[in-house]
């Protein structure tokens, strides 16, 4: 982060024309929306901004698409006395986005909030207000196929860690020169996924990506070179994956066309929150799921059946776990769409127990690498969808 500095005026030479073309397209979209507004105004009509209706009622799950998709309902904000402030702020925020693309810069939500402080009357008093406007813009441009990162609004949260048979092609923050990052050469450390991954390109011979819930398990597998033995890429999610991690896994798996296997705890949180979000996205952010979902993901384990098969040490399901599982079975369109998952969840509820990734240590610290994972990887088609 510190190596980036704001460029004034002059455009930089970019690594690869792709990112540049994308930026041009983004600016074109912003101008398009602004031009619609301008056109209405010059005709003496009230301009309006259309965003997808962000409510669960406007979300559906298409098994073939493989993610939660926003429906066709739109909310239309027409300029009126009551909306004039937000309307002005939205347009100003769009202008900020365009400026950032042109100067090759970015802003976190917090940054943007402070930028607005010199907008006079239109400034925001609380970050929550500017965040809301940013969410609106994100939703608005999701209709035009753009992500927030492409608009140069980056999340504060960093991405997960990566180790394995992968070369990430990035560019230098100051010079713009292309650089290659070899993810096999981080020693006991790991490559850290940047906030925005849109400009990255990849080169790999790996056969699959292993997305791991905990940092501890990632460290074990990375330190013992598990990726070398299995020709894979390891990604640590640290709980529910961040936008950057999800987008990174998505882009990587799409670019090089390899499957993603999720390895998480066997409890309702690991299944219904971490894995479900990775694979199909969340109901709250349905308008952006199509960028962040990972349709190539499948569930390696730990499965409820594994608890029985491997006689794993367990803990009882807590009340919140049971509630979460029942809620998923009842309301979550993803589980409704997959019979296998319904059965697995029922089994989990019947067992009334949960098991963690680390539970295999019962049979020795390296058991998970030498026994469990290799056995599972022999038949990926048996993984839960």
């Amino acid at each position, binding site marked *: 982060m510190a190596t980036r500095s704001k460029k004034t005026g002059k455009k930089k030479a970019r690594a690869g024309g792709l990112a540049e073309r994308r930026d041009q397209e983004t600016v074109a979209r912003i101008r398009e929306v602004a031009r619609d507004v301008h056109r209405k105004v010059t005709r003496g009509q009230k301009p309006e901004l259309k965003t997808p209706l962000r409510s669960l009622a406007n979300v559906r799950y298409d098994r073939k698409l493989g993610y939660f998709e926003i429906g066709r309902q739109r909310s239309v904000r027409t*300029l009126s006395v009551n909306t004039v*402030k937000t309307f002005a702020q939205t347009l100003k925020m769009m202008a900020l986005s365009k400026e950032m693309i042109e100067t090759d810069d970015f802003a976190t939500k917090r940054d943007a909030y402070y930028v607005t402080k010199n907008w006079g*009357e*239109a400034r925001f008093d609380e970050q929550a207000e500017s965040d809301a406007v940013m969410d609106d813009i994100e939703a608005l441009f999701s209709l035009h196929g753009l992500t927030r990162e492409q608009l140069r609004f980056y999340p504060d949260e960093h991405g997960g860690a990566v180790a394995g048979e992968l070369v990430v092609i990035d560019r230098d923050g100051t010079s713009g020169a292309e650089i290659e990052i070899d993810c096999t050469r981080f020693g006991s450390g790991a490559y850290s996924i940047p906030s925005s991954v849109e400009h990255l390109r990849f080169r790999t011979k790996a056969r699959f990506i292993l997305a791991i819930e905990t940092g501890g398990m990632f460290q074990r597998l990375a330190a013992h070179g598990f990726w070398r033995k299995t020709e894979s890429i390891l990604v640590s999610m640290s709980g529910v994956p961040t936008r950057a991690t999800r987008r990174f896994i998505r882009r990587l798996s799409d670019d090089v066309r390899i499957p993603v296997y999720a390895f998480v705890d066997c409890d309702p949180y690991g299944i219904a929150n971490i894995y479900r979000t990775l694979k199909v996205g969340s109901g709250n952010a349905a308008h952006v799921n199509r960028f962040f979902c990972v349709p190539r993901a499948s569930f390696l384990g730990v499965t409820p059946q594994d608890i029985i098969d491997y006689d794993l040490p367990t803990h009882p399901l807590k009340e919140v776990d049971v509630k979460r599982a029942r809620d998923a079975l009842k309301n979550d369109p993803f589980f409704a769409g997959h019979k296998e998952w319904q059965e697995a969840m029922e089994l989990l509820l019947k067992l009334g127990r949960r098991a963690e990734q680390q539970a295999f240590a019962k049979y020795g610290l390296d058991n998970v690498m030498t026994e469990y994972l290799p056995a599972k990887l022999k038949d990926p088609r048996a993984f839960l969808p």
Partner: protein
Amino acid sequence: MSPATKTPAPAATSDRQREAAAYEMAARQREISVSEFFTKNRHLLGFDNPKKALLTAVKEAVDNSLDATEEAGVAADIAVSLKPVPGCEDRFVMAVQDNGPGIVAKQMPSVFGRLLYGSKFHRLRQARGQQGIGISAAALYGLLTTGKPVRVWSRISRRQPCHYLELRIDTQKNRPEVLKHETLDDWEAAHGTKIEIVLEGRYQKGRQSVDDYLKQCAIANPHMRLSYDPPEGEKVLFDRATSALPVAAKEIRPHPYGVELGMLLDMMRASKSRRISAFLQAEFSRVSKRVAEQICQHAALDPGRSLKLVAAAELERLHRALGKVKVMAPPTDCLSPIGRDLILQGLKKEVQAACYVATTRSPAVYRGNPFLVEVGIAYGGDELPAEEPVRLYRFANRVPLLYQQSACAVFKAATTTDWRKYHLNQPRGALPLGPLVLFVHVASAWVPFTSESKEAIAHYPEIIKEIRLALQECGREVAQHIARRKRADVEAKKRSYIDSFIPHIGDALKDILRLKQQEREQVIRTLRAVLEKSRKA
């Protein structure tokens, strides 16, 4: 457990012993003079502490002056002066002079030097004073705390000299003691009275102060002019808002519903009538021949029975019958309301606000006594505090009540009114909050105070109900004003909204679309027109 089982019965005393005790007690039994009673119980009359004593003394003198001028049909012109005695921080010389009819020389000693001496107690009529205690109590207080006699000047006409008296009160006998009596041919005024009392006191500004009292007094008595020379600072003049005198309140006879047994007996003794029926018709209001006969019928008495022959048991029956017969409400010309317009003028004169409303209710009756309620509200403006509890100005027969607010029927009515309906905040069971002055006046021939110091009005349900109705009436009007102002605020805010945010839309479009400055101005102009149009639609 009964105490009898534990304590032995007292030893029987001999007849001789008992007799001796009775004689001994008889030697000590004598009349307790009212003045003596006062010296021991001065808090009952409002002289509990030096600060309050100062206020009470001023109040009694000013009340008397207002009553006197009104009765004589003179527009009150009163001068109040309050000066510290040099060298004594806790002593003040209070002087109050009026342009009333003056007091006949013969009566002067009794009026100022004798407690329970006055003209108002025996008459049922709206007046500030009632019992004839006030001013002599102030004089007595001065005497007790400083030893200085009261000085009084009075003149009844230009043709007569002014009488000047110095008085003391003999507390044993409740009799005035004239120390000096002079006649002055040359006095500053043609008629009027001036009293000067040296007394112990403490002067403080703010609530419950002499200043506060006089200000409220000016609101409730817009026909009065009063100049006030305070202990510190400039002289203040409360000028009159009207030259019209209040309509003189008529004296009425008691109504059958409000009479107590002892009073009935007194009335019977004093009456010149010879028969019961005639007595009832002559001494009570609203008692016709038919009503008198009905009362007698209820009491199982012959209407033609001689008054002198009514026995004790019959008297009780008669008293009970008075409350049982349907009698018309008492006449209300004994009341002298301030009137809606004058309340408004009084409030405007003394309270800076944005909006004033007032109402005078029709007379009503509690326990046979007619009364009426008037309410005024001053709302808004820059001077009244916006978030504090409202100021409650209470008046009984035009006299401001400054103490014991929470014990008063007015407070009870104001706190049990739902002010939230009128867009005001109100903590549960408390006065509402807001930039508001509530003016409540209760006028009656007999205001039921909770104590002799006349600080709070007793909780008669009829009175509380009337006050609440009047408050609600004014509350509704104020609510309209508040709603209007809120609408105006919203309107202004919307206008400024348009003005402050449209240029930003122009800026943003200019940045994104690389518009020319001229095009930006065009966007702003068009948008403003569009929004203004839609707002009016």
